[in-house]
């Protein structure tokens, strides 16, 4: 397998391996590239390394070997002080949501903008726009606990897109949702992708992939299967 060297790639993963303390090898010699504006699905059984791969891309973890290059920046060589700014390139949707249950819906979505340091008026405007896109505009004063599972997932998405990131990374975004909700969520990702956002989704939902027919990277025990 030769390293992808395409110039314009947004995400370039070359010969990446990840071994955890204790010897478990989550990824072995993984190589692929994602072009700007692409929508890519990463599939595989649970424990195949999907989440690990997303974490390596967002610099949440570091590869044991190989290189991860995002927009020309080598993640493994990055200084700790640079990483916070680097992460602002991404919209992250976590498997366990990671919502703040002591904050209102509005405050959850506004957090990335606060971190970036936007003026207050701009924060309010952008937060409402993001909530509008996921259909939660009327719920901004409520607490996340009052939302259904599907609504919580949409709240996560609002938080991920509020910063208008170039890359969306989603880990099992349709995990515990019934088909109707899942379809709605996938529809949102498609619409973001249509306006130029690069989308990488880790999922084990084979139905969805069959229907969409997207580019799929299949992971099997930490290796990319053909």
């Amino acid at each position, binding site marked *: 397998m030769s390293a992808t060297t395409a110039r314009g790639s947004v995400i370039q993963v070359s010969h990446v391996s990840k071994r955890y303390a204790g010897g478990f090898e989550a990824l072995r010699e993984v190589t692929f590239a994602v072009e700007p504006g692409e929508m890519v699905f990463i599939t595989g059984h649970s424990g195949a390394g999907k989440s690990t791969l997303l974490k390596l891309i*967002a610099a949440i973890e570091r590869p044991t070997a190989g290189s991860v290059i995002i927009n020309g920046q080598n993640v493994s060589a990055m200084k700790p002080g640079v990483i*916070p700014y*680097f*992460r602002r390139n991404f919209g*992250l949707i*976590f498997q366990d949501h990671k919502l*703040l249950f002591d904050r209102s819906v509005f405050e959850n979505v506004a957090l990335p903008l606060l971190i970036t340091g936007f*003026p207050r008026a701009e924060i309010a405007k952008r937060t409402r726009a993001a909530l509008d896109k996921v259909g939660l505009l009327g719920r901004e004063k409520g607490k996340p606990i009052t939302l259904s599972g599907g609504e919580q997932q949409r709240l996560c998405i609002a*938080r991920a897109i509020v*910063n208008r990131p170039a890359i969306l990374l989603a880990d099992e975004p349709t995990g515990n949702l019934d088909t109707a909700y899942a379809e709605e969520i996938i529809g949102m990702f498609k619409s973001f992708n249509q306006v130029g956002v690069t989308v990488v989704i880790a999922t084990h939902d084979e139905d969805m992939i069959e229907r969409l027919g997207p580019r799929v990277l299949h992971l099997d025990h930490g290796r990319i299967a053909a």
Partner: protein
Amino acid sequence: MNWLLVHLDTLRESLARLARQPIASALNIVVMGIALSLPAGFYLGLSNLRTFSRQLSSDPQVSIFMTIDAGTAEIAAVEQRLKSNAEIGRVEFIARDEAFARLKRSAGLADVLTNLGRNPLPDAFIVTARGNDPATLEALRDQARQWPQVEHVQLDAEWARRLDAALNVGRMLVTLLAVLLAVALVAVTFNTIRLQILTRRDEIEVSRLIGATNPFIRRPFLYFGALQGLAGGFAAWAIVALAVLFLNIQLADLSGLYGTAFKLEGPGTNDTMTLLAFSAVLGWLGAWLSVSRHLRHIELQ
């Protein structure tokens, strides 16, 4: 302008956080206030004592008391000896009648003295050294004791010097106490912030994941520590000021009985500002130590 707004927002948030847990905050502030009021109160007591001792002791001087039955000739001889001593600056002779009259005028002892019927006071010389050198006066004291018809020689500077030395010891104690209690204040803040970090762990973790820098995460905790310290300093100020107020009410009675107007000075503007700044800095330091220590753990997980 934007960064200023960010800091103001953090300040507002920290105040809101203090207010959200009124009992816990109040207890912390009271503990800090008491801890700080001890050295602050002692310091104030010392500076009051120092002003008081300055009022009492002017230049060091030697008092030479003659015997009651000393004649004019012996007095003249002593005066002669004093005047011929080149190191002596000023010699003041106080005749026994004059001393008696002075005593009658002051301290409300007139009745007692009148009833006494006779003057119990001796003639006296008050001598000041030219160079204000205590060694000269000590030498003079030892000489004068040998002279005929000299009853008693007293070096007046001695008690003032003893008081001064005692005040120095007191000042050292205050410093030690201040250092110890400053450590206590830092420890209290350290622990408060540790608990806050634990309860806000999710928030810190999520913020990290979506691109928060370390200063962004630290800032609210540092503000909280400094604010809590400041409030503790203010509590200490209030404790000391109230204590002075109550003591002065009692002192007014006491000094009224002695016919003097003695009253304690409360903490001045400079001292108050120093106290507040000191406590805010200590709170900030405690928060900083705590955040630096505990955020590292969150990063690793």
